[in-house]
């Protein structure tokens, strides 16, 4: 993923990550890998997505048993260090044994509670009953742990003697206690030795199950991660994507949780995105405040989510997998290297162009070269559009330069003020003052529309100027210049 953390934040990917309610250290570890499935890993991705889909379905059918699993997750601790130590022949201490006992108990609870659940085919939690029994020799079922008397007669006897001694100490006067304390200390040493021997035995039992422990840690990680992803997939409309072999993308009613939540605060509904992309060049045009960037980000977010093994937020999604996904954002600035924004853009583009020669990628460029002079800027954008025309890489490019389009390129346009009664709107705006912008925004149709034929870039910019009350004479002058 060729995205910086800032870009991931901008497109709303980090927002999605933060919304994942992962509960175990193993789930965290799995999510932390942020595994990107490559085109050759399509069947593995298919399995991952099906697992998430399965849990999403289970959640809608019977949420309760899944919550029961999550309750167990709360008790899961990271014990891989202890298991590795046991494998190496080390003697584990009481706290490690306690944590392993808890882990083993959680496994048996998870096994029991998941019996009636539909689980992915090869998913399995290995039984650790032998370990549970070894760590609970009296079968008390309690979740606490100590080196129980029943582990050895010797231990029992030592403790009996020690207890008698301690009672004696309590009964004795201060002066006599010193002597008894040193006798007790000798017993403590013996007890500790016996305990260490027992801990050694227990550690060896645990070591023989180390493979099953590691398997289960991974399995819990999967389960936790799947359920978290499934839960999120149910919070916002999502779908099971269709994975294609060819490099194309089709999204119907795609959304972004971040945008949905942001707009919800302002009581505005997010307008979903419909888009279809194939190898070659696709150009998005639209007015300045028309939401081109949001469309690009929504597309990127959902394509990335699929590559990450998550269900996309769309009504329908079918896409191929890419070798790389490249994004040139709307406010790219490499401050660290001290380059101007244009220079930094060029460097990024230079590197990515090299990759397009050997690999197949999705390139999303949001108004490239917008910082340069219009003449050169237009030529640069045009050059790019032609460069990718007819190729297998997908170039999606938003621009407000006109005269970019050529036969063979796909053109989407933001609907913008299509169908809006300008005279009426103008009247309304007169009374809105500061709120004019909000009103204007609410009248915009942000959806994309496929344009066929040589439609030109719309001149919504001037309309916006007029609506917001820019000097009439000035607007007239501008109009004539056009």
């Amino acid at each position, binding site marked *: 993923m060729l995205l910086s953390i800032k870009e991931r934040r901008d497109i709303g990917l980090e927002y999605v990550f933060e919304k994942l309610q992962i509960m175990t250290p193993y789930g965290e570890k799995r999510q932390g890998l942020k595994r990107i499935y490559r085109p050759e890993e399509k069947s593995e991705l298919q399995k991952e997505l099906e697992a998430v889909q399965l849990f999403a379905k289970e959640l809608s059918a019977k949420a309760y048993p899944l919550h029961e699993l999550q309750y167990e997750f709360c008790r899961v601790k990271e014990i891989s260090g202890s298991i590795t130590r046991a494998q190496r022949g080390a003697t584990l201490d009481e*706290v490690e044994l*306690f944590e392993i006992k808890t882990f083993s108990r959680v496994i048996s609870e998870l096994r029991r509670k998941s019996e009636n659940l539909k689980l992915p085919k090869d998913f399995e939690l290995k039984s650790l009953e032998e370990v549970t029994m070894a760590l609970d020799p009296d079968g008390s079922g309690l979740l*606490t742990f100590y080196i129980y008397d029943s582990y050895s007669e010797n231990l029992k006897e030592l403790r009996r003697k*020690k207890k008698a001694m301690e009672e004696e100490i*309590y009964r004795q006067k201060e002066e006599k206690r010193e002597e008894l304390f040193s006798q007790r200390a000798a017993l*403590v040493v013996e*007890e500790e030795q016996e305990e260490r021997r027992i801990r050694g035995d227990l550690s060896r039992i645990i070591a023989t199950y180390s493979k099953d422990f590691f398997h289960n840690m991974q399995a819990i990680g999967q389960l936790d991660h799947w359920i978290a992803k499934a839960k999120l997939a149910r919070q916002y409309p999502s779908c099971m994507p269709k994975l294609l072999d060819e490099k194309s993308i089709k999204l119907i009613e795609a959304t972004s949780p971040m945008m949905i939540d942001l707009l919800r605060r302002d009581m505005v509904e997010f307008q979903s995105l419909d888009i279809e992309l194939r190898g070659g060049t696709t150009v998005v045009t639209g007015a300045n405040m028309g939401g081109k960037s949001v469309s690009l980000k929504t597309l990127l977010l959902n394509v990335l989510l699929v590559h990450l093994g998550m269900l996309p937020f769309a009504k329908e999604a079918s896409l191929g997998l890419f070798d790389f996904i490249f994004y040139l954002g709307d406010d790219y600035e490499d401050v660290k290297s001290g380059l101007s924004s244009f220079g930094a853009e060029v460097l990024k583009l230079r590197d990515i162009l090299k990759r397009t020669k050997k690999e197949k990628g999705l390139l999303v460029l949001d108004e490239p070269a917008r910082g340069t002079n219009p003449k050169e800027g237009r030529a640069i954008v045009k050059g790019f559009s032609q460069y990718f025309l007819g190729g297998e890489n997908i170039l999606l490019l938003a621009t407000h330069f006109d005269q970019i389009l050529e036969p063979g390129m796909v053109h989407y346009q933001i609907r913008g003020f299509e169908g809006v009664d300008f005279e009426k709107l103008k009247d309304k705006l007169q009374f809105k003052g500061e709120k004019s912008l909000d009103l204007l925004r609410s009248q915009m149709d942000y959806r994309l529309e496929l344009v066929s034929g040589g439609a030109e870039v719309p001149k919504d910019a001037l309309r916006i100027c007029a609506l917001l009350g820019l000097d009439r004479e000035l607007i007239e002058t501008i109009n004539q210049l056009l």
Partner: protein
Amino acid sequence: MLIDRIRHLRSLAIIGMDKNAGKTTVLNHLIQEAKAVGFTPTLALTSIGRDGEEKDLVTSSIKPKIYVYPGTLVATTRDLLNRCDLTKEILETTGINTPTGEVILFRAKSAGFVEIAGPSNVGGAQRVKESFLAIDPGCFYLVDGALSRKSTAGHFLTDGAILATGASSSSSMAKVVDKTITMVEIFKSPRLEEEHYEKVKASLEEARLVIFGGKITPIPVELAFTAAREAAEIIDKDSYLIAIKGVVTDSFLNSLMSGADIKGKTLVIEDATRLLIGAELWRKIKSLEMKIRVLQKIDLVALTINPFSPRGLHFDSQSFEAALSRRTDLFIYDVGRDYAT
């Protein structure tokens, strides 16, 4: 007996004026007495505000260990667990980390010696207390508490306290008495009056320093020193109350006083352990007729004295006790003399 002083409480902090004020000895006495009189609640021990035991090793004084009886609940850290020589039933690994490892809760299955340490922040202390109560709702929460100047340090979250003082604090008995009496008087500060209580409490959820006057001004605190200067600029003749969350030190109050007239105004702190100031400044506060109020009242039930200092300068036990009892009517207990049987 000391134990008789705490029967009405559910929780207690033993607070030392100084490192070697004899806190652990007091704790041991209490445990002994509890056993002797058949004190019903299970004791649940931890320590808060200490930065590990290493420093005690440096001063190389013999640190008394705590001797507990079967059934006692103990919170300590992973590293100190090995120094507890009794049979332990591990109850919980808390996930709270300290410089000496994760805080672990166990139950004593036999009698024996323990070393205790606990979290050093408010959140951690709260969680340890909750865990104890979850294990045994009737337990008596007993904290070995060091006063700490670190603003992040926890309160002890107890309804009662014993103050331990002794010769290790200073070589001058008069100075020790002065310091101790100051602390005793601070503990006497009343709970904030009902009419202001809720709004002040709520305001401290939002900011660490809040001035109440013509309007309520929260001050975002980063450094205590600059905060005091900022506060001083805001305080005017209409300001009547200054509320502070965290530890209030000499330097903070001095810098506040040099910038603003705080005569007669009310200073609200969370509890008495948050005001860590010397005897001189305390006299100044009194002569300025400032009102010190607390959000949570801690019942100071006894003063324990340890006339011995690890540096070898001992006080005469009787004159030390006499000097203190002239200035307070609090129950005074000499850890070297009265021994519970």
